């Protein structure tokens, strides 16, 4: 498209994301330029463009976009003004989300490894290969998906595994991401997911970022807060972190703590609240119990009295906390004084800083606990809220329960009652669901990468919508060790070649985002729906279809699990006229809305934990609805912003004020936890003197498979780097841009150094972003997990830096 000078600017903006200026920069940046949308003229830029709504494909914020489609191609993106989440705004990734579809190397046909070479095969053969691998060893088969599965996709995979194959080896990458938030919420409230909503950001007086770089990771949410300031509003931002980030630039206080110092700080706040008598006595007496892990780490721990709680906190004086955390005592007093004030509204947010932590469940619990202890809960602006990194970490992984220990709707595989309910809802014989948990992610991959005769009892993994070859920790051990294990078989459904497809034996091309129907659930319990708008390229097909086709093939090959109690196929689909449609035949898949049938089927599971979902058609009309969505007397459906609070949550008893109606102690109370300070799993020493932290950057989303193919984003941050403190660099005679070797006990990686760059790690600390598939920082990371959530700690291990040469190496031409 030509950007004519006379073109109206407003119209230009509308067409913005996919517009031509990008092509110029792209050609200079040496990356693939987007094909210009055809037929869009300057005189009439809107000609023939059809607009529809969809949530953004990237992070867990869940912004809504308007997608402009012309001639079977996404040609424009703009922020959806009707969406409460983003109110028409988008971040730099969101503006370009349409280009995620149009990388030059989309996978377009199934490929099977034959004699070491990937060869094109038909879908027929591919589906057959998968089904036969399953049949050969049903118990050694596993599915590894993600929080980017749409809700129906995750639901099909979960039902296929648990109800069809009686196999609980299904995990999402959310295990690497949100699992600790889940165990935190469960052990405190007895039910998963935040009580608050993004509305808290509009009402809080104090926003505490707990190891949370919101400016880069959830920029649209952070801009909501910064915008309040710009309009004269007062909001104090306190950034607690282990390095200065872009968020710190906006903070009133930046408190830098030593790794795991967060545990000490939270205990220090609780200590002072009690010592100063500034905790909320009435709230605690009415709504809280006290708990701790006395012996071993467990989800529900053991109860303790208030006196015992007080005793346990006694050592956490500000001075002791200062020693453990490195944060001065007066800053601990400052935090405790804020929490001690009833006239302020305090919102805490966190993301991977808490969740990827060797005591992740503990730090989640402690953060909830100081909010409960101080009564900063259940009012707009008073909330402890975890943010998610994936668009449907909540909606699919957590709510559909695509984890090795979950059943849909918050049920547990180990709970006989829950299994019986699920068996009834799925109409399968009693005993079909296996009571034993499957392997959690790290274990699943460890078993897959271990030779069969040495106990490696996972032989086939089907990866869907994720890239473990880049995102698993300690990649040598948990992924690359698959190489050479002849009897192991890796199936990967994806849209682009990735670090994972490199080791795949079968690659299945998938449709993505608006190439299919979908539903996602964001961080604030908001379920969002969209329709298919364009066709996928080549032979790429929906992930839900892939699962259904394999299920049907297994049925036809005689696997008994694919039949329900009445001998009917586990997945049946009837169109509006009541006629059965064999949707596993691809040409017939879009004869009806398969998503709607699957969602309505799944919706029946959502009531037991009061995660009530509305009928599919309500989501078609809305820009997302936050559960519980409850039908009103007049037939309309009402969403809930603040859970457990009487003024907004219809499930709270009248007069109760606040009621934790899923309390694990069955007394409507939440649990205030004590958890001790525990040091990190691997601490720097003489050989490995640095802390190494990994994470994301604003421009790239997770493993970069989509954003690295978007020229504007690739051009902005073209390759990974290691950030270090200027004085550390000086000590080692390292200059900005020098190539260094970062080594840990697990691997080494050559990277350019960025000194005084975007973020500022303190002395003795390094940071590497994980988006670059050419520079895999997870060759270095540690696979130690939180003992309760089994989520790995990517945020701290011991490393060393050696100067490697004067140049930044081959990678990274802009």
């Amino acid at each position, binding site marked *: 498209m*030509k*950007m004519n000078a006379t073109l109206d*600017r407003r119209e*230009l*903006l509308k067409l*913005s*994301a996919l*517009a031509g*200026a*990008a092509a110029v*920069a792209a*050609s*200079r*940046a*040496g990356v693939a330029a987007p094909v210009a949308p055809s037929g869009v003229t300057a005189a009439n830029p809107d000609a023939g463009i059809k607009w529809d709504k969809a949530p953004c494909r990237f992070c867990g914020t869940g912004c809504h976009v308007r997608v402009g489609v012309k001639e079977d191609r996404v040609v424009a*993106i703009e922020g959806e003004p009707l969406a409460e989440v983003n109110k028409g705004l*988008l*971040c*730099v990734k969101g*503006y*370009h989300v349409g280009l995620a579809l149009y990388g030059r190397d989309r996978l377009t046909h199934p490929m099977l490894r034959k004699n070491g070479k990937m060869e094109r095969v038909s879908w027929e053969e591919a589906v057959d290969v998968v089904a036969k691998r399953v049949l050969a060893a049903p118990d050694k088969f596993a599915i590894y998906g993600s929080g980017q599965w749409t809700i129906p996709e995750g639901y099909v995979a979960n039902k296929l595994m648990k109800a069809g194959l009686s196999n609980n080896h299904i995990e999402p990458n959310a295990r690497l991401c949100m699992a600790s938030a889940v165990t935190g919420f469960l052990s405190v409230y007895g039910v998963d997911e935040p009580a608050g909503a993004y509305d808290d950001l509009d009402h809080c007086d104090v926003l505490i970022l707990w190891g949370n770089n919101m*400016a880069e990771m959830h*920029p*649209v949410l*952070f*801009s909501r807060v*910064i*915008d309040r300031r710009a309009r004269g509003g007062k909001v104090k931002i306190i950034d607690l972190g282990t390095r200065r980030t*872009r968020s710190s630039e906006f903070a009133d206080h930046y408190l830098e703590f030593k790794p795991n110092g967060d545990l000490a700080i939270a205990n220090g706040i609780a200590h002072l609240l009690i010592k100063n008598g500034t905790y909320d006595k009435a709230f605690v007496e009415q709504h809280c119990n006290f708990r701790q892990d006395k012996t071993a780490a467990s989800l529900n721990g053991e109860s303790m009295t208030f006196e015992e709680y007080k005793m346990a906190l006694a050592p956490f004086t500000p001075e002791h906390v200062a020693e453990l955390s490195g944060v001065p005592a007066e800053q601990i007093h400052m935090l405790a004084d804020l929490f001690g004030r009833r006239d302020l509204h305090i919102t805490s947010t966190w993301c991977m800083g808490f969740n990827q932590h060797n005591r992740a469940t503990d730090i989640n619990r402690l953060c909830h606990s100081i909010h409960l202890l101080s009564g900063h809960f259940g009012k707009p602006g008073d909330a402890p809220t975890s943010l998610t990194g994936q668009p449907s970490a909540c909606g699919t992984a957590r709510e559909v329960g695509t984890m090795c220990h979950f059943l849909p709707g918050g049920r547990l595989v180990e709970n006989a009652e829950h299994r019986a309910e699920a068996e009834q809802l799925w109409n399968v014989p009693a005993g079909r669901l296996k009571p034993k948990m499957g392997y959690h992610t790290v274990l699943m991959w460890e078993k897959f990468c271990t030779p069969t005769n040495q106990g490696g009892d996972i032989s086939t993994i089907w990866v869907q919508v994720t890239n473990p070859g880049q995102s698993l920790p300690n990649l040598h051990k948990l992924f690359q060790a698959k190489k050479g294990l002849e009897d192991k078989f890796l199936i990967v459904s994806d849209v682009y070649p990735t670090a994972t497809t490199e080791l795949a034996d079968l690659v299945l091309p998938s449709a993505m985002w608006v190439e299919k129907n979908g539903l996602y659930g964001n961080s604030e319990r908001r379920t969002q729906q969209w329709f298919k708008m364009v066709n996928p390229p080549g032979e790429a097909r929906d992930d839900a279809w892939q699962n259904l086709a394999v299920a049907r093939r297994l049925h036809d090959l005689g696997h008994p699990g694919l039949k329900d109690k009445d001998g009917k196929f586990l997945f049946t689909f009837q169109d509006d006229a009541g006629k059965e449609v064999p949707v596993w035949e691809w040409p017939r898949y879009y004869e009806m809305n398969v998503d709607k049938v699957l969602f309505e089927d799944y919706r029946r599971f959502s009531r037991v934990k009061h995660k009530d979902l509305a009928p599919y058609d309500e989501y078609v009309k809305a820009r997302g609805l936050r559960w519980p969505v409850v039908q009103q007397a007049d037939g309309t459906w009402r969403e809930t912003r603040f859970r457990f609070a009487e003024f907004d949550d219809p499930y709270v008893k009248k007069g109760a004020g606040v009621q934790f109606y899923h309390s694990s102690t069955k007394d409507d109370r939440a649990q205030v936890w004590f958890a001790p300070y525990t040091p990190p799993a691997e601490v720097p020493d003489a050989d490995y003197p640095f802390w190494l932290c990994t994470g994301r950057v*604003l*421009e790239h989303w997770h493993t970069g498979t989509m954003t690295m193919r978007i020229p*504007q*984003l690739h*051009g*902005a*941050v*073209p390759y990974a*780097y290691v950030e270090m403190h*200027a*004085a550390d*660099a*000086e000590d080692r005679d*390292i*200059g*900005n*841009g*020098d190539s260094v070797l970062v080594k840990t006990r697990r691997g080494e990686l050559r990277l*350019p*150094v*960025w*000194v*005084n*760059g975007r973020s500022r790690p303190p002395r003795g600390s390094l940071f590497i972003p994980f988006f670059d598939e050419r520079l895999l920082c997870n060759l270095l990371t540690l696979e130690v997990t939180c003992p309760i959530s089994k989520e790995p700690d990517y945020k701290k291990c011991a490393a060393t830096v050696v100067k490697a040469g*004067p*140049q*930044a*190496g081959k990678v*990274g*031409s*802009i």
Partner: protein
Amino acid sequence: MKLNESCSRREWLAEVFQPWKRQRAEGVQGRQAMPVTVPPASAVAAAPDPPVARVAVIQGRFCVALTSFCAVCVERCPVPGALQITRGMPSVVADKCTGCGVCFDVCPAPRKAVLMLPLAGRLGAGPVTNMNR
């Protein structure tokens, strides 16, 4: 490099994009640019080459800094102090800007927020470059 010297844009680009000059951490105040190596020869050759002295201007209405906390132009600017951030928005210090266009190239906004203007009155000043095409 002196800006008002007449030089071909190709030579000039080659100089701007030269391998990262090693900067000692010592004594460097404030931000340092992200390390960038030479672009592929084809990319340099493909660039248009009118010998024009230019200056970058940030067009606030196209900039995504306020909603996205983007500062890529500032991070990648090879001239210390030529781009600065004030209240979240990047701006160009015209006296320091060499007009190299790196900020234009890396700006990830859907509509480029960087405009390259001719430096009026300077030797080699010409019409608005066609980079914004």
